[in-house]
């Protein structure tokens, strides 16, 4: 069926409007990062900076350990993402494929675990990690983030595994492939979009997390990016808007790079026509 030209134009306009809507906060952030303190206090604020300045970026980078904190966040986020995927994938596969009475109980627990408020578990968690000498260490934070992200990752991956037709695995089995070979050669490639979506979720959760890092990390050398960003907010609601905006722009770059790298691999439709409908 051919699309009418007017419909096509309307589609483009809608997509453009949506892109503007999505992109506005980022453009606003970049604009704010280039404004001087005086422009922030202008009674008639302008969308674009009147006399752009990079001093906010200089201030933000001079702020104690911004680059160091970005590297810490990057290490933590990548380690958490990789470990969550390694641990979650076999468990999700098992939950999706095996028929057991444990399955509904496990799924129920995964859901229930999401409703615990952070503040409720942070003290016992802190005490346990301290006994294990894992407070004030990056591995300690990675473990916490893994535990925190795992339920949702499991939930997501389970859905993706369930969407892979059993018939494909049965066909591989008939062709003589072992269970492991079937998983590696048949299931894994088909799960790629699911793995990438889960990786994105886990990475962003770890990249943005504030509270656990605040409580667990005391060494200035180990502080993560959200902790350093919080320093631009003082007592009594005072905020250093310019340096905060500049630091936030810098903070979004790794996420954007990560997304740009992964989204090209986030293809779907691999399963279309894989089995007879």
């Amino acid at each position, binding site marked *: 069926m051919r699309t009418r030209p007017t419909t096509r134009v309307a589609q483009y306009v809608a997509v453009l409007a949506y892109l503007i809507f999505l992109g506005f906060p980022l453009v606003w952030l970049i604009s704010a990062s280039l404004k001087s*303190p*005086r422009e*922030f*206090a*202008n*009674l*008639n*604020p302008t969308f674009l900076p009147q006399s752009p300045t990079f001093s906010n970026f200089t*201030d933000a980078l001079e702020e*104690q350990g911004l680059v160091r904190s970005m590297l810490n966040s990057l290490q933590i986020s990548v380690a958490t993402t990789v470990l969550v995927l390694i641990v979650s994938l076999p468990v999700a596969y098992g939950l999706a494929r095996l028929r057991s009475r444990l399955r509904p109980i496990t799924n129920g627990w995964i859901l229930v675990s999401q409703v615990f408020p952070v*503040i409720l578990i*942070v*003290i*016992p968690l*802190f*005490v*346990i990690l*301290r*006994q294990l000498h894992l*407070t004030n260490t990056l591995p300690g934070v990675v473990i916490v983030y893994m535990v925190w992200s795992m339920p949702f990752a499991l939930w997501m991956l389970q859905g993706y595994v369930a969407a892979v037709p059993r018939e494909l695995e049965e066909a591989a089995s008939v062709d003589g492939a072992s269970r492991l070979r079937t998983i590696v050669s048949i299931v894994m490639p088909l799960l790629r979009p699911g793995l990438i979506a889960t990786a994105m979720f886990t990475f962003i959760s770890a990249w943005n997390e*504030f*509270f656990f890092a*605040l*409580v667990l990390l*005391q*060494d*200035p050398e180990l*502080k993560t990016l959200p*902790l350093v960003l*919080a*320093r631009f*907010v*003082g*007592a*009594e*609601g*005072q*905020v250093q808007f310019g340096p905060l905006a500049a630091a936030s722009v810098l903070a979004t770059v790794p996420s954007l790079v990560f997304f740009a790298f992964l989204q090209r691999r986030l293809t779907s439709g691999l399963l279309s026509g894989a089995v007879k409908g």
Partner: protein
Amino acid sequence: MKKLLVGFLAVGSLVALAACGSGNDSSGDPAPGEKITLKFQSLAFQKTTVAASKKIVADWNAAHPDVQVEYVQGSWDSVHDQLVTQFQGSSAPDIIHDESADITGFANQGYLADLTPYLSQETKDAVPAGVWDTVKSGDGKIIAAPTLLQSYVVFGNSALLKQAGVSATGDSLTWDQLQADAKKLTTGGKFGLGWGLKSPTATVLNLGMNFDAAFFEGTGRDAKAKIGDAELEVPKRIHAMAYTDKSIDPTSLTQSGSDVLPGFFGGKYAMVVAGNYTAQQMVEQAPKGFQWEVLPPLKGTSEKQAANPQTLSVPAEGKHIKQSAEFIDFFMKAENLAAVGQGDWLIPTTQPARDAIQKATGGKNGWAQTLASGTEMTKAPFQSVENYPKWKDQIATPALQEFLANKTDLATLGQKLNDGWGQVNS
């Protein structure tokens, strides 16, 4: 299944036992030749204050090779939750920076050390008794050293004041005079006063001290609400200026303190009432050529305001309480306190430090009036009331917002403040 359950129980018990088995050696003095390191978590925010705080640490470290202080940059954001966890986990920093209202609860739970024996007489004498009261436990122990204070002051647009013939001289500015000046300055679509009262409770209760407003009688959970004419005086006056005189822009009452600054700089308001630290934003953000000044301290029956100082304290489980307290005493020295106060545009709690700022600044940029506004600061009754934060958030703030939006009358406000205390303190 049974084996699995037993296994889980065993692991759980081991972890619990390990958690309970922690202990701290609070013996105090280090062994001869032993070098100790104290962690000082500072919440300093302004670049200048961070630099001043680091210099204090460096000076201390140079003079005390065996007792080194490590500067750890903290943040005001979520500091309370961080400290709750650290106290529970016995891992709080050796020297804690926080505000007095926040640490009172920790002190009541026994988490903070008694600094009374360690602070020097010089420090004890330099801070007014009313400010010491904000950092004393029920039995009179000093649980923190008060460092910096903020007061509420009136900022004026010098050109507009001069144009209207309003002169801000004298030792104080009475509320009647403020109202009259605001009225005089309200002309040509411009308002005499802009007042960011989005979160009005702290302002109303602190400035209420001008009229001896107590709001509460008694302490702890036994406190009773006391809402009379004195307590309603400040909101009544603000309301009258906004809706009778129309000398306060009513829309400004819904904004935060810093939200009204663009209007002040743009000449929309001739005066604003804000925390004295706002002076720094004036210096950084005011358009070139904009002249501003701080008016003399507001006065009702007195110039009193509630003191909620920033503090330095030491955990009761700290391993080196004496050395930590000695560092705090060093921090409290006039030149040190003056440096951090000047950096943060906050008022030092000690007179010698105030004198040092007066000397260093020559009283310019509103420092003379700002320092004067801190002279009568004292502990307010609400600072001894356990459920005050709950009352503030759930009762007082919405009730005051409604009243300042002209949606309820004064009697209803009083009723809500009074009855609401019964609800949150039951």
